[in-house]
C-alpha cells in the first residue's frame, strides 16, 4: 500500500510556529498502556525477581538472595526435563493437529452447500463451552470402566478389553492432547475461514481457465493467500497450548506418573503444593523466555514480508 505524499501547499497551512505534534492518539492509548503495565509487566518483573530468591512464604520473614541457584537446580532436575519433554510433545502435536483439522474444516465450510450455516455453528461449539465443564465430561467419557469411549471400542473390537485411558502413562498424554485439539480447532477454523473470504475469487476463476486442478489451486492460490493468517494462527495456537493448565489439571492432575505433567502444571505444583515460590518462578521465567522466542520469530517473519502491515 503506498502512502500519498502531502502537497507542499497543504503542509504549509498546518505547520505553525511549533512543529506539528500529534499527541492525541498517544494520550488516548495511554490509560490502556498503564493498565497493561500494571497487570502484565509488573507481575513479570516480580516473578523474575522471585526466581533469584529463596522465597519466605510467611509475611515478615525475609527472602534469601540465591542468585541463579534456582535456575541451576532446575537444569539439574530430571523432573524439569521430563516436564519440558512432555510440554514440547504436547504443544507440537496439539498445534499441528489443531491447525490441520481447522484448515480442513475451514476448506469444507468455505464451499457452498445446503446446511452450511448449521455446520459452521456446530463446528465452533467446542470453543465457547466452559473448559472445566467440557473437560469433566471428557474425563468421564474416558473412564476405564464406565466411559462411553470404551463402550464403543468394545463394540468395534470386543477382544480389546477395558482401556485405562487416563491411568496408563502411555495413553494419558494422547487422551489429553485429543481433548485439547477438540477445544482448539474451532479457533483455527474460524481464522482460516475468515482468511479464505479475502482471497479474490477471480484468482480461482483464472486458474480454472488455465486448467489448474484442485490441488494446484490450493498450492498456488489458497495456501499463499492464507500465509499471513497462518502465521498469526500458529503463533496463537503455540502460545495457548504452551500455557494450558485447566484441561490437564482436571483430567489427570499431571499424572499418571508425570506422563502429562507439563511445565505450567509443574509450576503450579511447586508454588502451591510444595511452597517453593523461587523455584517455581525460575520455571516461569524460562516459560516466558520460550514464549517470547516464538513471538520474536513471528515478528522476524513478518518483517521480512513487505506486504505485511
Amino acid at each position, binding site marked *: 500500500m503506498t*502512502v*500519498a505524499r*502531502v*502537497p507542499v501547499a*497543504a503542509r504549509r497551512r*498546518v505547520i*505553525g*510556529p*511549533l512543529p*506539528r*505534534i*500529534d*499527541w*492525541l*492518539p498517544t*494520550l488516548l492509548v495511554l490509560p490502556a498502556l498503564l493498565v497493561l503495565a500494571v497487570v502484565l509487566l509488573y507481575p513479570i518483573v516480580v516473578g523474575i525477581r522471585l526466581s533469584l530468591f529463596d522465597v519466605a*512464604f*510467611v*509475611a*515478615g*520473614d525475609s527472602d534469601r538472595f540465591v542468585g541463579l541457584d534456582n535456575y541451576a537446580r532446575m537444569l539439574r532436575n*530430571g*523432573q524439569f526435563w521430563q516436564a519440558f519433554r512432555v510440554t514440547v510433545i504436547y504443544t507440537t502435536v496439539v498445534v499441528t493437529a489443531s491447525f490441520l483439522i481447522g484448515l480442513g474444516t475451514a476448506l469444507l465450510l468455505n464451499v457452498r452447500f445446503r446446511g452450511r450455516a448449521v455446520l459452521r455453528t456446530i463446528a465452533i461449539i467446542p470453543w465457547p463451552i466452559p473448559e472445566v465443564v467440557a473437560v469433566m465430561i471428557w474425563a468421564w467419557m474416558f*473412564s*476405564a*470402566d*464406565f466411559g462411553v469411549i470404551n463402550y464403543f471400542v468394545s463394540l468395534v473390537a470386543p477382544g480389546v478389553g*477395558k482401556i*485405562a485411558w*487416563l*491411568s*496408563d*502413562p*502411555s495413553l*494419558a498424554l494422547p487422551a489429553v492432547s485429543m481433548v485439547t485439539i477438540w477445544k482448539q480447532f474451532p479457533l483455527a477454523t474460524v481464522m482460516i475461514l475468515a482468511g479464505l473470504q479475502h482471497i479474490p475469487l477471480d484468482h480461482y476463476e483464472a486458474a480454472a481457465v488455465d486448467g489448474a486442478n484442485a490441488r494446484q489451486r490450493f498450492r498456488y492460490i489458497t495456501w499463499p493467500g492464507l500465509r499471513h493468517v497462518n502465521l498469526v494462527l500458529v503463533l496463537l495456537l503455540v502460545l495457548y497450548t504452551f500455557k494450558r493448565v485447566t484441561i490437564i*489439571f*482436571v*483430567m*489427570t*492432575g*499431571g*499424572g*499418571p*506418573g*508425570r506422563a502429562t505433567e507439563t511445565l505450567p502444571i509443574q509450576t503450579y*505444583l511447586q508454588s*502451591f*503444593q*510444595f*511452597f517453593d515460590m523461587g523455584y517455581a518462578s525460575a520455571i516461569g521465567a524460562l516459560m516466558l523466555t520460550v514464549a517470547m522466542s516464538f513471538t520474536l520469530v513471528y515478528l522476524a517473519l513478518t518483517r521480512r514480508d513487505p506486504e505485511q502491515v
Partner: protein
Amino acid sequence: MRYQAQLDCCHVNRRVFLQRAAALAGGAAVASLLAACAPSTAPATPLVSGTPASTTNPPATQATPTTASATSISMRFPTWMYGEAGTGDWWRATLGQFKQENPGIQVDETNVPNTQFEDKMLTELSAGTAPDMMTAFTTQVPKLVKLNLLEPLDAYLDKASFKDKMVPTQKAATIGSKTYGVVFTASPQGLLVNTALLQQAGLATPPTTIDELFQAAKQIKDKTGAFGVGFVNDSKAVLLSYIAAMHYVLGNGSDFARDGQVNVTDPKLTEGLAWTKRILDEGLGPRGVDAVALQKMMGEGKLAMWISGPWVMTYLKTEAPEVYKTMDFVIPPTPTHAAITGGGFIVIPRASQQKDLAWKYIDLTQRADWQRKWLEDLVQIPGQVVQPSQAFLEANPWVKNMNDMTRFGAGFGYAVPGLEEINGEYQKIVMDHVQQVWAGSKSPADAMNDAKPELEDLVKAKVKR
C-alpha cells in the same frame, strides 16, 4: 486526498494543543484532589482482652486485630464443617454453649469449603491475617509448623484434665518436642463390607486374611457382577491414592519411610503394592476412580468391599439407607490389620490475639458430653476414648468394631515417618511411581528402585538434620 482528510481530522495546532493539555491537567488535578480527600479505612479499635498467653517465642506476624468494644470480644473460627450435616451442627452447638458461658464473646463462624480450605488458610496465615483458632487437616499441621505459623500448646495441655484420655492420633500433632493441636476426630479406616453382596456370592462372613479378601472379591465379581474390592487409584488424587496404598503396605508390616530414612525397596512394601496391582489386573476393582466415585458405587450396590473410613457409613446412612442396613465395618484383612488413622485438629495460630479464649473453647469441646455426642450423633471417633452406650451399639452394631479397631491404629495423620515436613513432595514422588505399577508399566520392585534415588535426593535437599 485521503491522507489530507486524515491530516485535517487529527491535526493539532498550538492553540488547540494548549487547550487540550490544560483540560487534561485540570481533570487530573481534580481527580487527585478527590482521591486525597476520600475517607480512609478507619483503624481497628484497640482490643480489650486479657493478658496474652505467654509463649516461648513471640508471634511471627501480627493477626488482623479482632474488633472489640468495651464489653465484647469478637473471635474468628473458620472450618470446612459448618456446611456439613451433623458435624456442622455439633460445632455450632459447642460454640453456642461457649458463648453462653462467656457473655460478651462473639464468634465469627466462617465456612470455607474443604477443597479450598488448605490454600485459603495458608494464604491468610502467611499474610498475617490469622484467625483466632481453626480446624486443620492432619496433613496440614506439619506444613504449618514448618512455616512457624502455629502456637505450641504444651503449656495448656500440661494442665488439661483430658490429656491422658486422648486417642493415639494425638501424636500426629507432636512435631519435634512440641504439640501444636488437639485432635477432634480420629477415625480409623477399616474394611467396609456390603454383606448382602457377600451373601449373594455365597459367603457367610467378611474376609479376615488377604487371601480370603481376594477369594471373596473374585467370587463376588463372578456371581453378582459387582466389583469385589476397590481403592482410590485416580492419578489426580495423590493423597487419597497414597492412603489407599498405605492400607496394603502398612498392612503388610512396612512403610514408605522409617525414622526419616527412605524405605521403599523393602520387600514387604513391594509385596503390599503387588496386592493393589492384582486387584486392578484381575478386574476385581474399578480403575481410575476417586473416593467420590467409590462412595457412589458402594451406595448403588456396585462395590462390595473397600478399606476406607466411617464417614462412608455416615454417607450411606443418609444417601443409601437400604444399603446402609446391610453394611458392616470390620478390621482390615491384612497381616497386621493396620487401621490407617487420619484425624482433624483444632489449632491456634501463632498470630492469634485470643489464645487464652481459644484454649477455653478447645477445653469445652473436650468435655465428656460433647465427645459422646461426636461419637453417637455423628458416628465417628472423637478426640478422646469414649465408650458408647448400649442403646447406641444396638442401633449401630458396626460401631463396636470401629472402637475395637483403634488398637490397630497406624499411619497416624498419613504422615511419612520422620519426614513430616516434606510429606507432600515425598508422597507425590512415591505416587508418581506407584501409578506406573497400577498402569502395568513397571513391576512394584522396579518402580520402587526407580523411586528410591529421587526420594533420597529430596530428603538430602530439603530436610535439615
